[in-house]
């Protein structure tokens, strides 16, 4: 029997994984919840297992997925991104049941998922991090320490409760006066909320660029990077547009960042594919943020500029094979841009458009174009999952050529039924700062006019809907 790998995910990433599995000569086992039974990932897989009605709960059910793997004879599980991808218990359960988990070990996932432990590991390895203090001393001494920190790094700073988390116990401080007033208040609050009044400070990086480095590490001690990506165009930490490599015109800085990423991965004993994320401030200082222990949505841009199949390497590494190339074989060629085409209405706060039927789906193609999607004409978008329909990735020799290709592809991409982010991306692709490669995490907020576009529901399609009504009703129902 052929080696089988279970794909513990849905949507476009399930298809991406199935393709790599099948290209390696293995068989792909899909899983699905019943709301997903129309999804095309089921059709292209070699076998599919229904997990249950869900929604979402069955994709998150460790027992069910391991049972499905066992039952279908899968040797390994690829978790994709989201769902169980960064759940150390899932990796552990795989390890315990003798199924290979395609990703790092449960211990690495667990360590890097914990901010405190991760910060400690990186601190020991001298990886630059956003400056911060230890717990502030009690009373006047603590205030003196705080003012000293602010003087050195400048405002604004974040005042954080040591025992806080999930956004609680954090306040932004803008001035000395603010600091003196806020520390006692914060302490009192922290004591009441977490039974611990310790607080510390962290510098705020204002409007940073979000740059990340793709890492591959095998179990023979080889750790490589595949260059940088820039994911600065985000809204509320949700990435919308990703490019590779970073457009920062400072090769030495980017090289340093990549080398730092490799050091960070090594410090964490990292295995398999991962992403080391950094923030870069306006003075080109860079700070370690975190390591993502999964394949990322935006891995496609790195694949396009390096020609290296990340998912294929993930599987090989997990099966104990050495990386077949060295750092010197990794060449960056040209530029790539990925846009996430979502069934959302950007004008209406990116409200999801789930539940609607895709009445027209005409995708683009041609030189330097890659599509990772799973929807088709007639498909009804389930309301219970995320709204990503298809990722459009374009690759070009120069940045200018790449942006031109993106524009062309978006103009030729037609999805009717749900509203999509296509017209929004068209505006970005024509916007001057983007065209100049000049953007940071404030991009969406500082360029509000990218939300100004005519709805795709063109006059022709509106009038056609009216003609259809007359045709169906056998007379104009409005003119009676």
């Amino acid at each position, binding site marked *: 029997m052929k080696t089988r790998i279970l794909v513990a995910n849905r949507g476009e990433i399930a298809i991406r994984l199935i393709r790599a599995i099948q290209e390696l000569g293995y068989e792909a086992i899909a899983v699905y919840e019943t709301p997903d039974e129309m999804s095309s990932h089921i059709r292209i897989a070699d076998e599919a297992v229904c997990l249950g009605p869900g929604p979402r709960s069955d994709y998150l059910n460790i027992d069910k997925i391991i049972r499905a793997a066992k039952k279908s004879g899968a040797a390994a599980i690829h978790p994709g991104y989201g769902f169980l991808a960064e759940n150390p218990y899932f990796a552990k359960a795989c390890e315990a049941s003798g199924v290979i988990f395609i990703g790092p070990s449960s211990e690495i996932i667990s360590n890097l998922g914990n901010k405190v432990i991760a910060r400690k590991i990186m601190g020991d390895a001298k990886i630059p991090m956003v400056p911060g203090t230890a717990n502030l001393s009690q009373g006047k001494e603590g205030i003196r320490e705080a003012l000293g920190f602010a003087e050195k790094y400048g405002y604004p700073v974040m005042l954080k409760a040591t025992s806080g988390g999930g956004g609680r116990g954090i306040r932004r401080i803008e001035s000395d006066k603010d600091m003196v007033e806020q520390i006692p208040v914060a302490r009192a609050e922290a004591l009441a909320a977490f039974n611990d009044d310790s607080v510390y400070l962290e510098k705020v990086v204002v409007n940073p660029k979000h740059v990340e480095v793709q890492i591959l590490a095998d179990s023979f001690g080889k750790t490589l990077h595949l260059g940088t990506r820039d994911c600065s165009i985000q809204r509320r930490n949700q990435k919308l547009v990703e490019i590779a490599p970073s457009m920062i015109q400072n090769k030495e800085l980017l090289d340093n960042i990549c080398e730092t990423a490799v050091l960070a991965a090594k410090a964490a004993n990292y295995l398999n594919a991962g992403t080391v994320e950094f923030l870069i401030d306006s003075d080109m200082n860079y700070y370690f943020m975190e390591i993502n222990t999964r394949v990322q949505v935006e891995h496609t841009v790195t694949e396009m500029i390096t020609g290296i199949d990340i998912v294929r390497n993930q599987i090989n590494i997990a099966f104990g094979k050495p990386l077949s190339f060295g750092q010197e074989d990794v060449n960056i060629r040209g530029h790539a841009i990925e846009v996430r085409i979502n069934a959302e209405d950007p004008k209406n706060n990116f409200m999801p458009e789930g539940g609607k*039927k895709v*009445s*027209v789906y*005409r995708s683009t193609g041609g030189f330097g174009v890659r599509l990772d999607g799973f929807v088709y*004409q*007639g498909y009804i978008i389930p309301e219970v999952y995320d709204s990503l329909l298809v990722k459009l990735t374009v690759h070009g020799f120069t940045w200018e050529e790449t942006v031109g290709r993106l524009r062309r592809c978006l103009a030729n991409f*037609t999805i*009717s039924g749900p509203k999509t982010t296509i017209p929004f991306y068209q505006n970005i692709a024509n916007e001057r700062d983007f065209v100049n490669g000049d953007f940071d995490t404030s991009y969406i907020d500082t360029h509000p006019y990218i939300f100004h576009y005519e709805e795709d529901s063109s*006059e*022709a*399609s*509106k*009038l*056609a*809907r*009216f*003609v*259809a*009504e*007359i*045709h*169906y009703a*056998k*007379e*104009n129902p*409005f*003119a*009676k």
Partner: protein
Amino acid sequence: MARIIPGSPAKEIVDTLRSAKGYYLTNTARDLSQSDFKNRLLLHTDLIAAEKRDNAGYFSLEITGGASIHVDMLRKQVNPFTKLRKLREKMPNTMFQTLCRGVNLFGYRPYPKNIVRFTVREFAKYVDVWRTFDFLNHVPNMTAVFEEVARAGRLNEPCLCFSTGPEHTNEFYVKKAQEIIDVTGRDITLCIKNHGGLGSPVRIGELVDALKQNFGDIPIHYHGHNTDGNDVGRIVEAVKNGASIVDAADSAFTGFYGPPPILSVVQTLREYGFHPEGLDEDAVIETSEIIRDERVYYEQFESQIKGFQPTVQIHKLPGGAMGSSLEQASKGGFLDKMPEILHKELPRVQKELGNYWSVTPGSQILWTTAVANVLDGERYGNPSGDLRNLLLGKYGPFPFYQPEDWIYEKVLGENWRQVLEEEGGIEEIADIDLALERYELSSLIGVEPTDEQLVLYLQHPNDAVDFFKFEEKYGQVHVLPPSIFFRKGGFYQGEKLSFRDYHGKEHMIEVGPSPVTNSGETSVYLMVDHHQTIYTYQKKTAAGGDAAVQVLTKEEIIDLAKAGDVRSPFNGKIVEISVEEGQEVLVGDRVAIMEAMKMQTPILCEMAGIVTAISAKKGDTMHPGAKILKIDLNE
């Protein structure tokens, strides 16, 4: 003689008319559409005619106002302002004219003064000539419009509504004209609004002469209808006696109840030595040649009964109401009763109610009262809310005499004197908060409305909102030709429909198959600009199922009402639910208001008790017997 062009100051226009040797013509396309085609002539057709009409050199083109604002949105799905803009693009040289019902604007009931002014201001951006009337010839009902029109620098054309009968003397009309001129000043054109086409040519000639004797410097605009086939005769006498402008329409579309053909008027008057100022007769002929082929698409909207109606001199229905009354009679199954209604009851009611002018909204009151009197068997037994308001003097005072006491008693009840005392007379309608209305509208349509949208909303709230939503969903459908817009029986498979959209872009739709699935879902396949699109329709709920509306007889509905089960007594729309669940009600209390045939009728409580369930809501369309609400005994 120089042509009068849009934008000319009112005084300049009137001076040109004063010094003209011949007469001018107004093309009343709007009245033609309303009288003979139930207001359905599409902008598409008017645009085909536009260039030739512009070349023809009319004094004005009446293309908006009357019921057209409402029907534009309700049945033609075109924004009345868009219509004016599109026409203006193609007709730069012709003044546009509207018909405004004074304080009732383009609706059927009086509006607050600030709405009247706001509406006039917005429309005055496009409309040059303002023909304004009041169905009681009550001048105060028109003054707000006069003032705003003058403020906008447009031409006021106040109307004397004309009718016949012993009270309708030259002295009365001359006095009325003086009353108007006292308000408007003398730089106006004065319209004789002969909405029924009443009176003989001689009578019209005498009236024009009397007016000219008294107001020699004021140009008279004669407006008539050809219902009896004799309007050309009246027009000839009007011009012979000094009228400056007369109304007619394009012959390709002339019918029975609207204006007569322009060319017939011109040819006849030429024999009498009168010359049409600025008119290009070739362009008049070419207009009809161009639009003649379009008429076939409007056949379904032409009158149920064909032929002139010389008996209009008896029943006096205005041209605009002829088609719709016949349609109602046909749909309501009482066509056989029409001779009795038109020739016996209507003249009787007319006389009983003061012999005022049978024009909107007064004509609707006469008509619905006459119909109810004949069909119910009891005269004035089931009075409409608007008849009640008429008797209470809400529209203005009766011009000649008041109805007899027994009618007051029938309509207002036994204590009618007290009711009249307490509720009678014109109420000053309080201004409404426009900012609040704007906010309301924005929450209904989800975007900040334009001023024009607000104006339309204030005129016809429910229908305007429906229209705005329609526009959002289906776009600017007025670009579609009548062959598509009014198609019956669906399109042929393979049929290619081509048209230009609002932006001028050419499109083609090819009609594909429409398969039906086992579950009854229909998929309509269209190739839109060579791209396939599929529209899916769920199965319609089967007739005769549980949801089917039971048709109850009038007696059954009354019996149910007496048992506390309030049902709709006729086909109509809920305008208001006047009570809340849990509210105590007494016999005779108003529980709801319904609207049908433009008339509002209160639904009264037939049993005392407590309102326990409300099944209908504002805006619902009701069939006879449909549930409105339930009243239970208060125990």
